[in-house]
């Protein structure tokens, strides 16, 4: 009787793995296409709303009116679609088993196009990530994947969406690992790469091979020039800090306003943005056109300094007022302008040979991105992918690390997590998550367990288990494991008056175990598949029992290590299918 059951389970498992692999590709393509369509829709909306040369009145009216409509939709139908999308995806991945309702993806698309298209100084990458993650989560549920697999589709889609929106597949995968999952060693890397590459292929087939930025040929003129890049790192750090602090301060103020004003907040932001656009239309929307200009010359020093300052203010206003849009591209814009300005000053004043201002703009993009988004590896690889030039690595890392260090020193909590915290969602930082997930089974196991001899009768087994509250027990002799037996089964046999039945007739021989060096993730996964007990066995001899992990011992560890926000894990551990209907309001 056991054999067909095992075959069926294996088939199911095989089916799920195969489906997951196919879905990684399909979701990669879908995410890439939605990212491209989102970009095109924003462009189309901008043309439709502003025309070629809009009047001052149009500059004021369009963002105000469209933001009001978007605000109505955001307040009443898609409250989760406010802001970037990346922190929401992170929260969904870590706290809600990756569950993102399908309407979030739809709402984000519509409101994102409206808000960015009407001139708000916001990015398209964050929304693309949320849209793709929402679609992936919905598809995962539609395919009835296990909660674990459905959850895994979220970062895969995020990587694909970023790859499609930004055309940097490696950086996109790193972003998913570094920012969304918070673990650079996550086993999802293969699927993320697959999806990311699929998205880039699709994106290029639609938009052509032209890169998103035409970057200048990079050249480090002399080792002395690294001093200038250190200065750029300091400037990048200062800009990042000003942006993070400014955004959190202003958003904090806006969140303190009475809830009834929430409908009008985006419109008020639109009004301010409209007033800014009359004088500085270059900060409208994503603004990559002008990033390109900064990278390739054509922008004056004064212009770049003004654009950097105005973009900073405009993005803070747009985001804090509750519109839908991200901070990914504004951070690149700020970096390009700050870097370009530093490059021009260095070019004019430095006593040593220096590279073109465009090269500084390029490194500046990475530095400010590292300071704001706090994903330094993503930032390095993103710029590397844009330049495809190894020479950029050293100055880029110098500037990035200085900017990152300054930003972290004065704003310890990463911006995305600080934004979530303002919404009363407490998410541990990537480092903390990584540290927690690196806990090993040997640190979680307990040697306080009951082992019942396989030759013992049900009656003696019932005696042995009566002194404990556990639901499952080891069966074996002299530290040699032969199976598990559940309390329910023993009690049922007793009720049927089969007291003399030997325990080995009732033993569960198909069960999961772990070795002492297995990670917490593996422990959680396998414990969820066992009937309430996970044996820890020796690698040299898998029947030699070393300890056990129970839901209770793990729950105690989670409580100690992480606090109450880790309830999601405990629930998963107990095999519950989490179905949260209520969603947080961001």
């Amino acid at each position: 009787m056991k054999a067909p059951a095992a075959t069926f389970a294996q088939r199911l498992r095989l089916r799920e793995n195969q489906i997951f692999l196919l879905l990684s590709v399909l979701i990669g393509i879908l995410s890439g296409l939605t990212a491209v369509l989102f970009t095109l829709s924003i462009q189309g909306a901008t043309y439709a709303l502003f025309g070629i040369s809009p009047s001052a009145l149009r500059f004021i009216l369009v963002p105000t009116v469209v933001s009001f409509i978007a605000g109505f939709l955001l307040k009443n139908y898609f409250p989760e679609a406010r802001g970037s999308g990346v922190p929401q995806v992170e929260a969904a991945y870590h706290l809600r088993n990756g569950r993102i309702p399908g309407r979030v993806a739809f709402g984000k698309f519509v409101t994102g196009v409206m808000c960015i298209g009407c001139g708000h100084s916001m990015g398209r990458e964050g929304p693309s990530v949320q849209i793709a993650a929402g679609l992936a989560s919905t598809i995962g549920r539609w395919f009835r994947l296990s909660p674990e697999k459905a959850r895994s589709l979220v970062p895969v889609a995020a990587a694909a969406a970023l790859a499609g929106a930004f055309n940097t597949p490696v950086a996109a995968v790193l972003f998913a690992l570094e920012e969304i999952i918070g673990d650079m060693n996550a086993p999802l890397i293969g699927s993320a790469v697959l999806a990311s590459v699929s998205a880039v292929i699709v994106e290029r087939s639609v938009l052509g091979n032209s890169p998103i930025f035409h970057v200048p040929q990079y050249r480090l003129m002399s080792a002395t020039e690294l001093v200038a890049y250190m200065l750029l790192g300091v400037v990048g750090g200062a800009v990042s800090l000003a942006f993070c602090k400014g955004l959190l301060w202003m958003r904090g103020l806006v969140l303190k306003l009475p809830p009834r004003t929430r409908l009008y907040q985006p419109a008020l932001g639109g009004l301010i943005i409209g007033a800014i656009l009359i004088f500085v239309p270059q900060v409208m929307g994503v603004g990559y056109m002008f990033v390109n200009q900064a990278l390739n010359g054509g922008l004056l020093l004064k212009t770049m300094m003004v654009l950097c300052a105005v973009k900073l203010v405009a993005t803070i206003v747009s985001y804090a007022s509750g519109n839908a849009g991200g901070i990914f591209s504004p951070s690149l814009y700020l970096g390009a302008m700050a870097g370009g300005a530093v490059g021009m000053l260095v070019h004019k004043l430095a006593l040593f040979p220096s590279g073109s201002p465009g090269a500084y703009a390029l490194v500046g993009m990475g530095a400010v991105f590292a300071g704001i988004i706090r994903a330094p590896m993503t930032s390095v690889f993103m710029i590397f992918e844009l330049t495809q030039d190894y020479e950029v690595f050293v100055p880029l890392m110098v500037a990035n690390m200085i900017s990152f260090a300054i930003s972290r020193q004065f704003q310890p909590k990463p911006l995305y997590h600080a934004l979530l915290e303002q919404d009363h969602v407490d998410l541990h930082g990537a480092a903390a998550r990584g540290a927690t997930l690196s806990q090993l089974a040997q640190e979680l196991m307990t040697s306080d367990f009951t082992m019942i001899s396989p030759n013992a009768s049900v009656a003696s087994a019932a005696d042995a288990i009566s002194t404990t509250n556990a639901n499952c027990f080891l069966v074996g002799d002299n530290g040699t494991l032969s199976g598990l037996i559940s309390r329910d089964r023993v009690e049922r046999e007793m009720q049927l008056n089969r007291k003399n039945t030997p325990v080995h007739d009732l033993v569960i021989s198909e069960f999961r175990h772990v070795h002492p060096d297995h990670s917490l993730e593996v422990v959680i996964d396998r414990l969820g598949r066992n009937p309430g007990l996970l044996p820890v066995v020796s690698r040299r001899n898998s029947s030699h029992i070393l300890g056990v992990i129970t839901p209770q011992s793990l729950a105690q560890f989670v409580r100690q290590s992480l606090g109450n926000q880790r309830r999601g894990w405990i629930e998963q551990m107990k095999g519950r299918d989490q179905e949260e209907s209520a969603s947080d309001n961001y």
Partner: protein
Amino acid sequence: MNDEKTVRLLRRDVLQLCVLGVCVIFLYLFTRAAAARIGSIDRHVAATWYAEGTRSFRSGDAKGAIESFTKAAAIDRDNRTYLLALADALAATNHNMEAQEALQRLREADPTNADFNLHLARLAAKRGNTSEAVVYYHSALDGMWAGPEALEQRRNVRIELVQFLIAKHDENRALSELLVVDTELPDKPSAHIQVAKLFLQVGDARHALNDFAEALRLDLHDVGAMTGAGEAAFRLDDYRKARHYLEEATAQGDKSSRTAESLSLVRMVTLYDPLAPGLGAKERQRRLSLGLNQATQRLEECQSKSNSPDLDALKGEAAAMQAEILSTGGAQDPAMISSGVGLTYRIENAVDARCGVARGVDEALLLIGRRHGDTQ
């Protein structure tokens, strides 16, 4: 039972995958259509901004032009014309570094593009960076020129380089470039005249005369060529030829004072030169005596203003030479004639140094002395 369940699950999976696949295909087609539409709008908008920028630039509103070109170049990044126009507008408003950056970007995309290199060369020339300008000029010359007028465009660039080098007083390099131009000139008088004038500027009168002569061969009545040839011959001290060309030019209608002055001087040189070929002994002595008298007269005038022992000595030598001329009584004495020409030259030169530049006959006497310097 379990197998049936597995098959049912697999069927459902396949169906779902098919549905998803179809959705993806439709989305792909829709996205492509949207991309094409947005692309065409982009190009239209960029072209509109470019036209606006061109209008602003022509009307002298460089700032407005920069704004419009910036937008055009940013919207349609693949169109290099827009970025080039932006670079020109930036350079025109002395935003040289920004212009350089934009041009470098274009050059990186297409290093062999002659136009981009030429713009970079002009910008470097404007900034006074001679070596960089020369490099870019050469890159432009070696670059790819489109269209049937590639040869002419390349020649014009080389001529531009020559003019730049002349302005920078680098005549040697200018001459080497000119010699290259000279080998590829078309059969057009204007082209030969242009190059000949540049040869004159770099001090190569021989090639200048050849090119003026070639221009005259192509158009016998080209007054400019005649005047130029006269000037070149004059520089070569070939005064007979110079007189011939200058007289022809005057006869053809060249009424410029410069030509008239040159002709007058050349005529005096030919009238006063005692060593001109084909003269009799008496005529040589007469010319020598005339010249010496003129020089002595100028010397005496100068002495009245600022005397010196040198001038006294020269005056004594002049008197002795006059006496010697009289004593020969018209007999052949080439050594005396040559020595007399040398003396005349020394007197004029000494007076020039003390009492100002020679004019008229005195200038002619100086030219005669210089011409026959090897005989003295």
